C-alpha cells in the first residue's frame, strides 16, 4: 500500500481525474473531500462489509421457505 503524508488543504491526484483532499482534521477524525467523475463509485468500506456479511448470512439460511400465509397475515 502506498502511504502519503498530507496536511490540511493538501490533496493528491489519482489517475489524472480524481482529487482527494484533506478538508479537516479534528482529533481522530479526518474529513476527506473527493472530486471524481460521476462514473467513479465511492463508498465507505463499511458498506461493502455490511453487504458481504448480509450475503454470508443469507447463504447460511435454511432451504425451508416461509409459506405464503405470512404475507397475507403479517
Amino acid at each position: 500500500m502506498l502511504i502519503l503524508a498530507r496536511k490540511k488543504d493538501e490533496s493528491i491526484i489519482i489517475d489524472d481525474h480524481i482529487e482527494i483532499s484533506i478538508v479537516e482534521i479534528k482529533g481522530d477524525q479526518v474529513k476527506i473531500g473527493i472530486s471524481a467523475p460521476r462514473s467513479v463509485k465511492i463508498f465507505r468500506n463499511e458498506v461493502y462489509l455490511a453487504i458481504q456479511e448480509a450475503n454470508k448470512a443469507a447463504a447460511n439460511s435454511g432451504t425451508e421457505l416461509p409459506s405464503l400465509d405470512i404475507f397475507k397475515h403479517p
Partner: protein
Amino acid sequence: MQVLTKPYGKIEVDERQKIYFPNGLLGFENLKDYLLMDAAQQPFYWLQSLDVPEIAFVMINPAIFRHNYNPEVSLSELEEIDLSVVDSDNVLVFSIVTIPEEHSKMTANLQGPVIINRDKKYGRQCISTNNEYKTQHYVLEELAVEKDSVC
C-alpha cells in the same frame, strides 16, 4: 441440463435460466455462474451457484414490500452488465433475503440489490447510493406499514 441445487437436489433446468455475474456477489467473488429459478413458494426466487451446490440465495422482488423502491445505483455499475437505465423491461431487480428459524423475522437487503440484464443474462450485485436502504429490512413489518399507508 441437470443441475445439483441446494433446495431441490438434482433437477432439470433450462439453459436460459443461467445468469453470469462477472464480479460474483460481495463476499463470494469467485462464484460467477448462477441459475435463477422460481422457488416452490411464491414470492421467492433462488439464485443457485452452479459452481458450489451448497451456495444458494433466496431472493424476492423488493417491490412487493417497497412499491417505490429506487436503489439509485451508479450508471457505471449498470454498464458493467450492459444496461443503461434501471427502469426498462429488460431489467430484473431482486433483494437477497435472509431467513432465520423464526420466519417472520426474515430480512431483505435493499442496500445491495441484485440486478439482472434479462436479455444478456448478466447479473451484478450493485450498491445503492440511497442512504435510506440498509442490508436488513424486516420484510413483514414493512409490508404491514405499506399496507396501512395504502388503505
